[in-house]
């Protein structure tokens, strides 16, 4: 997510001028906030947040900044927010026989928090499947997270399918 703070003159049409360079460069706008209460010298602080394709983020941001400059829009701050570190995965095998609680605790000990869990099984000692949604630390890569889960899967003979 990209967070942009600008100052716009309090006149009709100024918001459109702000949106144009964002949308023309692939920005998917999630929200806009006008701070009318903070108006000084007829200038209003405006926050806008939007998504950009990860692959094009560098070039799109450059173009957006250039577009804002050409329109004499005063840029106060621009920041790139961290990505939501959430992964969904399915485990198939003897998920319950191999102690699902212990699996969750093992993940938790690595600061991987299970947010959601749903299960499907016929008999408790038969092959079953669970889907888990986990949140993992910002400094952990998806690759490292997968390695952690795969270690458990190897030990417990579970089959991992991840997002």
């Amino acid at each position, binding site marked *: 997510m990209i967070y942009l703070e600008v100052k716009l003159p309090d006149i009709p049409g100024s918001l459109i001028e702000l949106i144009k360079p964002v949308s023309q460069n*692939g920005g998917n706008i999630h929200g806009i906030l006008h701070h009318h209460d903070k108006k000084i010298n007829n200038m209003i602080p405006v926050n806008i947040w939007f998504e950009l*394709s990860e*692959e*094009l983020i560098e*070039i799109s941001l450059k173009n957006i900044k250039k577009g804002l400059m050409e329109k004499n829009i005063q840029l106060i701050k621009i920041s790139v927010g961290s990505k939501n570190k959430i992964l*969904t*995965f*399915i485990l*198939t*095998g003897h998920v319950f026989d191999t102690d699902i609680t212990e699996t969750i605790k093992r993940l938790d000990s690595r600061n991987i928090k299970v947010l959601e869990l*749903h*299960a*499907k*099984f016929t008999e408790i000692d038969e*092959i*079953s*499947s*669970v*889907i888990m*949604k986990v949140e993992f630390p910002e400094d952990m890569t998806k*690759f490292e997270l997968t390695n952690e889960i795969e270690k458990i899967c190897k030990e417990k003979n579970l*089959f991992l*399918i*991840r*997002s």
Partner: protein
Amino acid sequence: MCEDMEVKICLIGMGNVGTCFLQLLKEKQDNIRVNFNFNCKLVAIFEHDGALIDNDGIDLDNLLDDNTNLRKNQHWKSNVKAQDLISTLNIDICIETTPTNPNTGEPALTHIIEALNKKIDVISSNKAPFYLHYKKIQDLAKKMNSLVKFEATVASCVPAISIKKSLIGNTISRISAILNGTNNYILSRMTTEGISFSVALKEAQELGYAETDPTLDISGYDAAGKLVIISNELLGWSKSIEDVKIKGITKITPHALELAKLDDYVIKHLAIAEGNNLIVEPRLVKRDSPLNIQGTINLIELQTKYAGSIILIGKGAGGFEAASAILNDLINIVQKRGGL
């Protein structure tokens, strides 16, 4: 090469792909002459039990009227092997479509090496030599100043390899692909009908989408081989199938597919090249993702630095599909050799 130039070719392997290629060549002969200014002269066809060699050119009409005419022809020689005779032929391009061992790449590998050693350009529809010995083949081709083309090895006529030329000004950072139609059919049926893996496989076999022995497909080995080839070509790597982390689809259960639906996912067997890694495994894919294709279709998604995602999609198998990819390669080679 000049106008009305003659390009002499040989075909090794006259199975389904080889026969389709000859039919296509016959059909397109006039078009090739008019648009690309060359005539194709077929001087040899090799089969497992002999060869038809005629330096004056083999009559395609007669041959395609009845396949048995191959061995009835006065120039047919029994019990001769392509690998022994390639170096004696006066040809420009060798087209290799033999049934090949997936673990050794033979006999295609030897045919390719023999042809390149004789400075003959090569076109192959066989994957195994390329996912096993990509670097060896490319190094030899470079050393001998020969061209080697293999568009048909990945997703058949979908331009998975030749797209490289169209993206020369861009940078490909990641490949995500569905490269095995059999597996995609099985998973599609399991998802939509809630049937088990074994039932879906049986159905695929009955419809001719899966082999009697489907091991290479369902284990992920076939997709892994194709992934190696496109990654080496598009990302400039020199990897082999041993570098791929492979998981098949046999352990996917209807329960797992039902759970995936809860969070708006489907399970797809993906071939992924990212970072420095090659991975073939089932993955959760959002239902509205372009990767969620149905049936036996192949799909290749290229993440590019300057244009985001570019997607190729189409039939990944079939005789005429592969034959058209071979003919593309042939025209490309002639053009590259200055045939225009």
